[in-house]
């Protein structure tokens, strides 16, 4: 079953605007990751935020994590047409017996219009 759920399912913005995507999850996590997928390609890791972190930056990406609300957001600032892709959150949670499970959400499809 899906642990993370992204919102919105699809987002269309003009180039230069900021894009915000949200992810909600149900159980306690060890960390949360965001991945990007260009059409017809595999997923590419963007950023990882640990459960004891509240915010993390990487270039034009800003990720926040609120463990009390079980939610995360990915902000892409000053968007470019090349940012057009689907974005997935993935949660890592302890699944017992020393193992961790990584579960992906269904993704947000971002379209950046030039």
């Amino acid at each position, binding site marked *: 079953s899906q642990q993370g759920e992204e919102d919105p399912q699809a987002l269309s913005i003009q180039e230069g605007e900021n894009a915000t995507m949200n992810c909600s999850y149900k159980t306690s996590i060890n960390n949360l990751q965001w991945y990007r997928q260009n059409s017809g390609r*595999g997923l590419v890791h963007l950023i990882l935020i640990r459960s004891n972190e509240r915010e993390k930056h990487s270039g034009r990406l800003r990720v926040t994590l609120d463990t009390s609300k079980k939610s995360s957001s990915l902000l892409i600032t000053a968007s470019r047409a090349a940012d057009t892709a689907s974005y997935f959150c993935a949660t890592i949670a302890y699944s017992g017996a020393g193992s961790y499970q*990584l579960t*992906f959400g269904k993704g947000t499809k971002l379209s950046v219009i030039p």
Partner: protein
Amino acid sequence: IAGITQAPTSQILAAGRRMTLRCTQDMRHNAMYWYRQDLGLGLRLIHYSNTAGTTGKGEVPDGYSVSRANTDDFPLTLASAVPSQTSVYFCASSEAGASGANVLTFGAGSRLTVL
């Protein structure tokens, strides 16, 4: 270039046929995974391997089998393909196996159509 190689990139298959999707990585990662991606359902884990010689079942393992004879290769076999197995299949790997810091590297995917 280091990474994951999947083959074939695309295949059309008759129902009932056996099919093996190949996956090879050259990063010496311990863990490897197979996901299927379907429209509206996101990525779902089929099988995984935390280290060579071990495998485990994911969320949707029925109809699929895997083996991990060595570190680099992780083939996925459909013993008798059915139309519901039409999907895009992604192989992935991570440096750590049963770890809380898994970051996955993905292959480019194999698009399988079962008629």
